[in-house]
């Protein structure tokens, strides 16, 4: 079975631009969470979506938004990019109601110049 997939793998953007990152969960998983991992730090929780509804939000500005589609895939959008947004963005899916483990994708490396 395919794991969590994310696209693109790498991305370079300029300050002030907008970016959209995509995630496809493991088949059968209805929950998707997004995390930001800055170099040398642990991942920081951004959003959780379950059944297309936001179920949790971390301490991130309104420039960050996300949504989940009927097929449970998800997008993370970041507006007005700042240099500090440069990070590895990780998506994780889990079968809420069945198990508790979160399975992470390979991540999208975003560089803001």
């Amino acid at each position, binding site marked *: 079975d395919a794991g969590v997939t994310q696209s693109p793998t790498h991305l370079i953007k300029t300050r002030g631009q907008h970016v959209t990152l995509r995630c496809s969960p493991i088949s059968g998983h209805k929950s998707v*969470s997004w995390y930001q991992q800055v170099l040398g*730090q642990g991942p920081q929780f951004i959003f959780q979506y379950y059944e297309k509804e936001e179920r949790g939000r971390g301490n991130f500005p309104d420039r960050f938004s996300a949504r989940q589609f009927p097929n449970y895939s998800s997008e993370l959008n970041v507006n007005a990019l700042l240099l500090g947004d440069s990070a590895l963005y990780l998506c994780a899916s889990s079968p809420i109601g069945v198990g508790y483990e979160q399975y992470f994708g390979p991540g999208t490396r975003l560089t803001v110049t």
Partner: protein
Amino acid sequence: SQELEQSPQSLIVQEGKNLTINCTSSKTLYGLYWYKQKYGEGLIFLMMLQKGGEEKSHEKITAKLDEKKQQSSLHITASQPSHAGIYLCGADIPGGSQGNLIFGKGTKLSVKP
């Protein structure tokens, strides 16, 4: 807010040696997760612990959660080069829904052949 502190920050061991990584929480843990990460890649789920005193093993890796549920340890027996990577502990955010995790900063493990 809850914080997870990992120790040591980094570790270099000779192949075949045993090692232990610790994760300490400022508050009671309701779900403790161990992940492994290769540099710049996604997280690989290792184990989840929920009950005080719980211990789980997978191959040569054993994880324990203390009775007070504020500290966990990850023990690797007879380390191999394949064990090298960054080990992260994560925990359910208190009051958050399942899937909202906070993480420690990670422990970087190098294994010398």
